[in-house]
């Protein structure tokens, strides 16, 4: 057994809790400093994950497994390419979110720090847990500190917002708990182990194999919990309220990390546990994701409150994440994972920026600003760059994520040919969804640039804004690392994608054929047979035409080597 680095990353924040609480009330500065130090140390330790991670290994790494309660419940944690970046995102964003609202939390400094530390442990734990019981404990543990952060340090309507947040989340989690218990007994009642469950539920002819109905019901129970967290349209209305009322730190963590619990949950649990149900329900889920992309953008366009605008833009961005994931192609899934990180960085940075302004003016209404580029040039430069990343301009992280996702969706949607004869086939559906999703690039520019124009440009219309001061050193220090990653991911995405590749490829290789098979049974087997025949004939034609077609297993890709292409290029 090596050094338990995963447990260290998970529990370091929580271990700091007694220290923080022991410091006398009259020393709030010490508490802040100590909390920040704990977070920074945690981040440094988590870097070990990045550098110690073997990118060629697809399975779980750095696994720690100890019996915990009885024999069936284990403390088991592990990291793979699906979770690595999200863990790093969490440890990276936590100190930034805390330092970003350094001066705005004046009351109950101790409790605030304590809540954040517990929250961080819960978040990291959720990403790392490889035992469903452990996962559920961390999952629910997240709720309490977030409830307090919004409810105690929030804005005017904080009670309504925090209650809504908790009730929404609980509604989903309860059903998930029922499903987990059902699965526990179904699996033989002696383990909660993730990998064991996967092999039991999806194996051929094993004892615990789920019937189709069981799969669908359990999938729905999990999906509801996750879809609320994402949030998927139409389950999103808790999000704008929670964001608007939450303090800056809360918003950054909420948007940056908490929403990803939903998408991560789909990726980690819902699809591998219930592939047949996923095959059946991925079309409606992708449909809702695309509705979310367009709808979120439209509603964002109608906002007057910047924070609400950013909140609705999250609905739009997370729609992309869901769409890419359910396309189940290597590009779609890796784009989806990268876009989770991107959204955390870009939206986190946007909330930080909004927070900087709020601390100065105590308002978030766009009409209260205008022309502040004149008085806050550095802030404006930062804000424009972050907005561009949110729009997905090449050179920023947003482009890489969206481009990968769209590539993944088109790969699933086009396959080899558009099928004019079979308009309602799965592929054509995905293709149409992909095209509609692509239009999100226009709508994104519309609402983001309208916001930038209204707030930053034009003459200064409100007298108070004349005396605004530009970013101070602390604020620059907070935002610079985020900007750095926005650009680094945009220019050299390989640094991060390489870490996820092996796991993603393995994931797609395992689940994609399984789901395709289930989908054909469920929907249009006959149509697909006809289609394959057509393609087979076309491939034969191509072969006769001089080109060499290879890689025919999936009948999807034509590789025609250059020397045999018959083109007239030398």
């Amino acid at each position: 057994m090596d050094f338990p680095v995963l447990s260290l990353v998970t529990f370091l924040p929580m271990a700091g809790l007694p220290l923080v609480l022991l410091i006398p009330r009259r020393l709030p500065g010490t508490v802040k400093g100590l909390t920040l130090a704990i977070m920074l140390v945690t981040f440094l330790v988590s870097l070990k994950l990045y550098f110690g991670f073997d990118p060629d290994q697809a399975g779980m790494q750095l696994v720690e497994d100890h019996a915990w309660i009885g024999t069936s419940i284990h403390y088991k944690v592990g990291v793979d390419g699906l979770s690595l970046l999200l863990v790093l995102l969490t440890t990276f964003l936590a100190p930034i979110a805390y330092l970003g609202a350094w001066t705005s939390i004046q009351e109950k400094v101790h409790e605030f720090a304590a809540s954040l530390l517990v929250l961080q442990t819960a978040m990291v734990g959720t990403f790392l847990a490889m035992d469903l019981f452990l996962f559920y404990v961390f999952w629910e543990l997240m709720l309490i500190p977030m409830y307090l952060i919004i409810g105690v340090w929030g804005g005017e309507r904080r009670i309504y917002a925090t209650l809504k947040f908790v009730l929404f989340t609980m509604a989903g989690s309860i059903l998930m708990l029922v499903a987990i218990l059902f699965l526990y007994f179904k699996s033989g009642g002696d383990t909660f182990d993730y990998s064991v469950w996967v092999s039991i539920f999806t194996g051929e002819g094993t004892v615990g194999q789920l019937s189709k109905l069981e799969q669908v019901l359990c999938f729905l129970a999990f999906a509801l919990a996750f879809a609320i967290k994402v949030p998927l349209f139409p389950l999103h209305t808790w999000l704008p309220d929670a964001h608007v009322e939450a303090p800056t730190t809360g918003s950054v963590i909420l948007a940056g990390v908490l929403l990803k619990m939903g998408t991560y949950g789909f990726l980690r649990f819902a699809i591998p546990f219930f592939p047949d149900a996923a095959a059946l329900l991925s079309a409606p889920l992708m449909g809702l994701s695309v509705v979310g992309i367009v709808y979120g953008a439209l509603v964002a366009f109608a906002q007057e409150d910047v924070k609400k605008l950013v909140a609705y833009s999250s609905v739009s961005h997370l729609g992309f994440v869901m769409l890419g994931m359910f396309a189940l192609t290597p590009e779609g899934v890796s784009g989806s994972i990268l876009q989770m990180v991107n959204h955390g960085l870009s939206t986190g940075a946007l909330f930080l920026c909004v927070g900087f302004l709020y601390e100065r003016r105590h308002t978030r209404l766009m009409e209260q600003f205008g022309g502040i580029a004149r008085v806050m040039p550095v802030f404006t430069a930062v804000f424009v760059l972050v907005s561009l990343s949110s729009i997905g301009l090449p050179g920023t992280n947003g482009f890489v994520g969206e481009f990968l996702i769209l590539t993944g969706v088109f790969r699933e949607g086009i396959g080899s040919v558009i099928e004019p004869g079979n308009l309602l086939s799965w592929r054509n559906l995905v293709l149409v969804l992909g095209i509609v999703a692509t239009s999100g690039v226009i709508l994104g520019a519309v609402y983001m640039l309208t916001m930038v124009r209204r707030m930053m440009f034009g003459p200064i219309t409100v007298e108070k804004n004349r005396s605004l001061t530009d970013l101070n050193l602390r604020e620059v220090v907070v935002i610079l690392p985020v900007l750095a990653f926005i650009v680094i991911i945009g220019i050299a995405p390989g640094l991060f994608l390489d870490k996820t590749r092996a796991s993603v490829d393995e994931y797609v290789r395992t689940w994609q054929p399984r789901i395709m098979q289930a989908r054909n049974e469920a929907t249009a087997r006959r149509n697909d047979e006809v289609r394959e025949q057509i393609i087979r004939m076309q491939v034969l034609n191509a072969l006769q035409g001089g080109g060499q077609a290879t890689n025919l297993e999936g009948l999807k890709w034509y590789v025609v080597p250059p020397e045999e292409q018959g083109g007239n290029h030398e």
Partner: protein
Amino acid sequence: MEPKLFAAIPVIILLPAIGALLAGLLGKRWGDRFAAVVANLAVFSSFGVSLYAWWFLSNDAAGMVYLYKVYPFLKSDLLDIGLDFRFDRLSAVMSLVVTGVSSLIHLYSMAYMKGDRSHARFFSHLNMFVFFMLLLVLGANLVVMFAGWEGVGLSSYLLIGFWYEDMEKAIAGKKAFIVNRIGDFGFLLGMLMLLMYNQGSVDFFALERFANSGVPPVANELNMTVICLLLFLGAAGKSAQLPLYVWLPDAMAGPTPVSALIHAATMVTAGVYMVARLSFLYVHAPIAMAVVAGVGAVTALFAATIGLAQTDIKKVLAYSTVSQLGYMFLAVGSGAFAAGIFHLTTHAFFKACLFLGAGSVIHALHHQQDIRRMGGLARKMPVTHWTFLISTLAIAGIPPLSGFFSKDEILTAAFLASTPFPMVYKVFWACGVVGAFLTAFYMMRLYWLTFRGEPRDHHAFEHAHESPWNMGTALVLLAGAATVAGALGLPGEGHLFSRWLAPVVGKYTLEPQHASHLTHWGLIGLSVLVAVAGLSAGLLVYRSGPEGVSARIARAFGPLYRLVAGKYFVDELYALIVVRPLKAVATFSYKVVDKVFIDLLGVNLPAWTVKGIGVLPRMFHDGNLRSYLLAVVVGVLCLWVVL
């Protein structure tokens, strides 16, 4: 020898990027002068290295292409996209035009932007633009090209809204970005389709092989047509063609050097470059070619008519740019790719010169842009006047100036295009000829009202002065280039330009239909005739100033004139059918769907119902001992009665 060229390519691109960073980060501290000098040095050196690379390439065997692969950008089992650069004869021409014209405009800007509060920001953005433009023209695959494509859009957005405190200018910048994004939607879809059909590579070599392979299920004419049309949507956005041209006239809100560089000479021609670069795709899609040519021809005519009635000196030139870009698309759509790039080059010279001349006038008249308030400036500003006149004659198509050769070549190509639809192309040709007449007409109007006749604003006239040396130098050099560049494109065997480009686009150029010498000379004669007629007509109408003959004509054609002067009310139409519905849908989604349907009926109503149900049992649990006792007594009595 080769390594030298490989070293040159990144240097060409990186110099402006370094310039942008230095000017942007240190300009505020080290002063305006520093920013301006650094930016100028960066671009001039980049031009110098481009010249070296061009010279190197011209000594090499024809058709050599230099690929510079920096690192793999995106890789998966399907995708293989690298940050690759490509230096061939087409990129050589483009990088020379871009860095050459940029250098002169940077020089000009030193004087033009003197005293502006945000001097450093201006030069930083301008350098950033050059960087992205070089990325665009030197990229070896569609993704790198797209990165440059979006980057120049960003620079354009920032520079149009350079004086952001003016709300209209900020709005113009945003409009440019959003309209371009509509085009980019097409670009992105086309690129994604190519990625799928071509095994995850959008490298130009790979695409060329793919297009020529003719693998039936994928590389068929239908797919090619769809892809080409989608990509052309992107080109139409960036190059301001119908129906997406509306952002360019508004983009004149930017400083005049920006209009000259970005919105006349370089960025807006990116669409033409893209079609020429992808000529191997377009030749496989005759319908898409016809659409390209048609949109170009109609835009050429349409924008020229709007140019007739504009009164802002920059707006006239803006519509003229839209119109001239139309000619370039007519050329590439007719399969004459070299002719399109040739017109792109000559246009870069004379239109940049015209814009800088306009800037010189605006500078002299303290930001007066209305040509009705000008007149008689020829005496006061000889350099500006003469260079403007030369460029006017060039764009009108008077031989032997460059515009004559390039435009005539385009019209001939359209007339003789080898296409399945020759009659349709004749109509395009006719549009082009009428457009050429109108071009000569509105340019004469612009020239005369600005420089000749009597000064109509005496106060401004008194203060007018010739511009400083750096502005003059740029004007003279550009006018000189506009004069002699035609020599590169003499008809027939002497056409150095198309011979130079032959290895890149030659084999995809559609051989024009055979025609007699008489036809060829007739077409040339017609071009000259049309140009002379247009200039003369303009002179006749506007010799008496804006109030003379022209006003009578305007009155005679009242509604028609108002329609043209109102720019066919296209902006108003778009506001009505696009902008307002979008806002309405957005508001409806938020106020009705989100607030009422989901949040009120779906969330709060169930919550209130549960709360409401709770009211009754809560009455019993009021914590009052006497009421509990009462309940016990009543219960016991009930039990007693029942039992």
